[in-house]
C-alpha cells in the first residue's frame, strides 16, 4: 500500500518535472511512438497500418476540407488545444516478437520521449509492450489486439479501441442462429486456431459463447503459427467433415490452409475465418478467388460516398496506390484519431493529463472511420462502443452481410471455395 503511494508520487513528481523542464512551444511537434510488425511474418499488416496512421497524421497536420466538415481535428494546422502542435509519428519495428516489442516500447519512452504509444498488432506483443508503458506511466492506445486478458490486468494506462473477442463471438453466434433458423446444418462445428495469445484466447471465448447459445464445438485443432505444412490438419477435418469450420490464423498459415483445402478437395458448408490473416490485403488479393463465400468480420465498411470512412479510404487508396482500407489498417487509424482527440483536449503532453483526457473520451458514431458506434472507455480501458460487422468474400472482395442496418449484400451459402 505504502509502496504504491510512493510510486505514484514519484511518477507524478517525475511527470511534473518533465512538464516544467520542457514547456510546449507553439512549433513543438508532439511525438507519438508507434510499434508495429514492420518485418517478420505479419509485416504486411504492420506496413499497411503504418500508412493508415500516416494518412491520419497528415489530415491533422495539413488539413482536409471535406473531412473538416465532420471531424473537428481535420482543419489542419495540428492540434489547436495543444498550441497547434503537429503530430510526429515515430515508428518502431516489433519484428513479430514480444521481446522486440518490449525493447522498442522502452526505447520510445526513454530515448524518444514520446507522449504516448500506439500498437502493437499481435496481442502477445501488445501484452509486453504495454507493460513497459504502464511501468513508466505513459498512455498506451491499442487499436487492434483482441486477446481478452489485455484489459484484465488492472492497468491504468492502457486503452483499447477495438472490439474484442466476445463481440466477434456474439456476432458469429448470431449469424449461425440465423443460418440454423434458415434450415442450414450447424450441428457439427470445428475450430482451428494458432496457439499464441490471439488464437488461444479468441478460440476459447468463441467456444464459451457458442456453448451458451447451444452450439457445440466438437473438434478443436491447435497448431503452431508459421507452419511449414498444414496437410495433417486439413485431413483431420476432412475425416470428421464438420458442417461449420472456424479458422483463427495469421497470414502465412491462412494462405496454406486455403491452398491445402483445395489440394485435398474438402470444404465445409459454412466457413468462418476470424479476421487477421484472412483480412490481410495480400491474402485477399492472392487467395480471394479460392475462398469464395468465406464469412469474416470487419471493422471497416466503406459506407456512403462523402462519409468519414469513404473520405479516409480515398486518401489511403491514393497513398497505397490502389489498396483500400481494411479491417486492420482502419482500426489503427481510428486509434490515432482517438489519441489525437485526447491530446487536444488535454492541452498538454503531461502523462497524467493525457490519461485523464483519454478516460473522458466520448466520440460520436458520425466521427468514426471504423464501423464502431463511438468511442467511450470503461474503467478497464475497453471501448464499450466498439462493434463489428459480419462480411462475406464475394468475387475477391468482402461485402457486408450483417447486421441488417449496415449490410450491403445478402448472404450466399453454402461456402463455395474455389
Amino acid at each position: 500500500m505504502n509502496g504504491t503511494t510512493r510510486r505514484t508520487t514519484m511518477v507524478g513528481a517525475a511527470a511534473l518535472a518533465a512538464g516544467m523542464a520542457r514547456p510546449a512551444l507553439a512549433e513543438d511537434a508532439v511525438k507519438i511512438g508507434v510499434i508495429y510488425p514492420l518485418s517478420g511474418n505479419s509485416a504486411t499488416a504492420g506496413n499497411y497500418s503504418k500508412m493508415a496512421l500516416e494518412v491520419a497524421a497528415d489530415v491533422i497536420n495539413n488539413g482536409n476540407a471535406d473531412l473538416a466538415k465532420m471531424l473537428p481535428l481535420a482543419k489542419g494546422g495540428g492540434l489547436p488545444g495543444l498550441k497547434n502542435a503537429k503530430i510526429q509519428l515515430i515508428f518502431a519495428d516489433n519484428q513479430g516478437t514480444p521481446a522486440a516489442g518490449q525493447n522498442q516500447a522502452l526505447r520510445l519512452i526513454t530515448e524518444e520521449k514520446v507522449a504516448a504509444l500506439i500498437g502493437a498488432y499481435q496481442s502477445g506483443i501488445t501484452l509486453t509492450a504495454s507493460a513497459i508503458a504502464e511501468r513508466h506511466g505513459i498512455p498506451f492506445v491499442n487499436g487492434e489486439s483482441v486477446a481478452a486478458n489485455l484489459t484484465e490486468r488492472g492497468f491504468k494506462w492502457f486503452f483499447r479501441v477495438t472490439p474484442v473477442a466476445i463481440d466477434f463471438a456474439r456476432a458469429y453466434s448470431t449469424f449461425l442462429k440465423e443460418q440454423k433458423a434458415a434450415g442450414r446444418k450447424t450441428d457439427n462445428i470445428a475450430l482451428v486456431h494458432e496457439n499464441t495469445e490471439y488464437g488461444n484466447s479468441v478460440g476459447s471465448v468463441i467456444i464459451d459463447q457458442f456453448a451458451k447459445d447451444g452450439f457445440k464445438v466438437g473438434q478443436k485443432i491447435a497448431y503452431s503459427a508459421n507452419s511449414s505444412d498444414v496437410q495433417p490438419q486439413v485431413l483431420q477435418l476432412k475425416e470428421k467433415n464438420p458442417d461449420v469450420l472456424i479458422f483463427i490464423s495469421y497470414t502465412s498459415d491462412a494462405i496454406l490452409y486455403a491452398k491445402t483445402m483445395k489440394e485435398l478437395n474438402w470444404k465445409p458448408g459454412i466457413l468462418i475465418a476470424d479476421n487477421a490473416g484472412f483480412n490481410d490485403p495480400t491474402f485477399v488479393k492472392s487467395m480471394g478467388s479460392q475462398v469464395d463465400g468465406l464469412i469474416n468480420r470487419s471493422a471497416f465498411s466503406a459506407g456512403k460516398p462523402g462519409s468519414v470512412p469513404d473520405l479516409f479510404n480515398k486518401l489511403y487508396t491514393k497513398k497505397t496506390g490502389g489498396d483500400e482500407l481494411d479491417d486492420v489498417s482502419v482500426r489503427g487509424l481510428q486509434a490515432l484519431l482517438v489519441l489525437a482527440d485526447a491530446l487536444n483536449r488535454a492541452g498538454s503532453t503531461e502523462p497524467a493529463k493525457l490519461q485523464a483526457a483519454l478516460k473522458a473520451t466520448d466520440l460520436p458514431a458520425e466521427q468514426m472511420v471504423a464501423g464502431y458506434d463511438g468511442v467511450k472507455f470503461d474503467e478497464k480501458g475497453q471501448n464499450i462502443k466498439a462493434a463489428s460487422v459480419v462480411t462475406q468474400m464475394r468475387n475477391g472482395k468482402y461485402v457486408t452481410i450483417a447486421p441488417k442496418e449496415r449490410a450491403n449484400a445478402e448472404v450466399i451459402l453454402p461456402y463455395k471455395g474455389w
Partner: protein
Amino acid sequence: MSFTLVQVIVSGLLLGAVYALFSSGLTLIWGMMNVVNFAHGEFVMLGMYSAVMVWTALGGGPFAAVPIAAMLIATLGVASYFLLVRHIMRGPMLAQILGTFGLALFLRYAAFWYFGANFRTLPDTLVGGSFSLGGIRFEGSRVLAGAMGLVITLLLHFILTRTAIGSRMLAVSEDATAAQLMGIRPQRMQALAWALAGGATGIAGALIANFFYTSPTVGETLAIIAFVTVSFGGFGSVLGALVAGLIIGVVESVSAYAIGPVYKDVVVYILFVLVLWFRPQGLMGKT
C-alpha cells in the same frame, strides 16, 4: 490402416522429398568445405522469388523458372564464395558462422527492401492443379517438387561419388594442400561446390514457390527444417539428407494427424535428439 492415414503418409513422403530437395545444397557445402551456410534459407527464398518474378514478368511456369532460378542462385553462390566465404574461411569458426549469418540478414532485408513485405503466391494451375489416384489426392506441384527432390539428390550423389570432378572436389575437402600438390585448384573446386549447391537450392526454391507462399521471411521457416534434416541425415551426406527428409516428413505428418499439430515438432525433435544421441554424426555421416 484407415484410408486417411494412407493419405497422411503419402503427403508426408512428398513433403519429405521436398525437405530433402531444399536441404541438399546445405549438406553439399558442408561436405565440401566444412562451412555451415546460415544464409541457406535466404538462398531458397531468393529461388522462390525468381519463380515469382518469372511468372509475373514473363508469365512462365516452372519450365522457365527452374533453369533461371538455378542460374541466378548458382551465381549468387559463387559470388558469396569469392566475396565472403573465401575470406572468412581463414578466420576462426565463429567468424564463419557470423559471416554467413550476416549474409542471411543482408539478403533477407534486401528482399524486404526490393520485394516489400507482401506475401506472393503462384496460381495453382501452373503445374496442372491436383489429381486423384485410387482415392489418394496428389497435388501436381508437390509431386513435381518431390520427384525433382529425388532426382537432384541422386544426381548430386552420383556427381560426387562417380565422376572425376566429384573426386577432385572430395579431394579438396579432405586435404586442400595435398589436392593442390596433385594439380587440383582448391578455390576452383570450392567455387564449383557453391555453384552446384546454389543451383540445387535455386531449383528447390522455384519448385516450392508453386505450392507455398513467398515472402522475405519464408527462409526462416524453411531453414530450420533444412538444418534439422541435414544434421539428422549426417552433415555432408546428400543421401543422408534424402533419407532424413523422408523420415521427418512422414513423422511430422503422422504425429500431427494422430496426436495434434502442436505436438508434431516435439515428436520430430525427440527423434532428432535420440538419433544424435546414439549417432552424433547423423544417420549417414562420416565419423
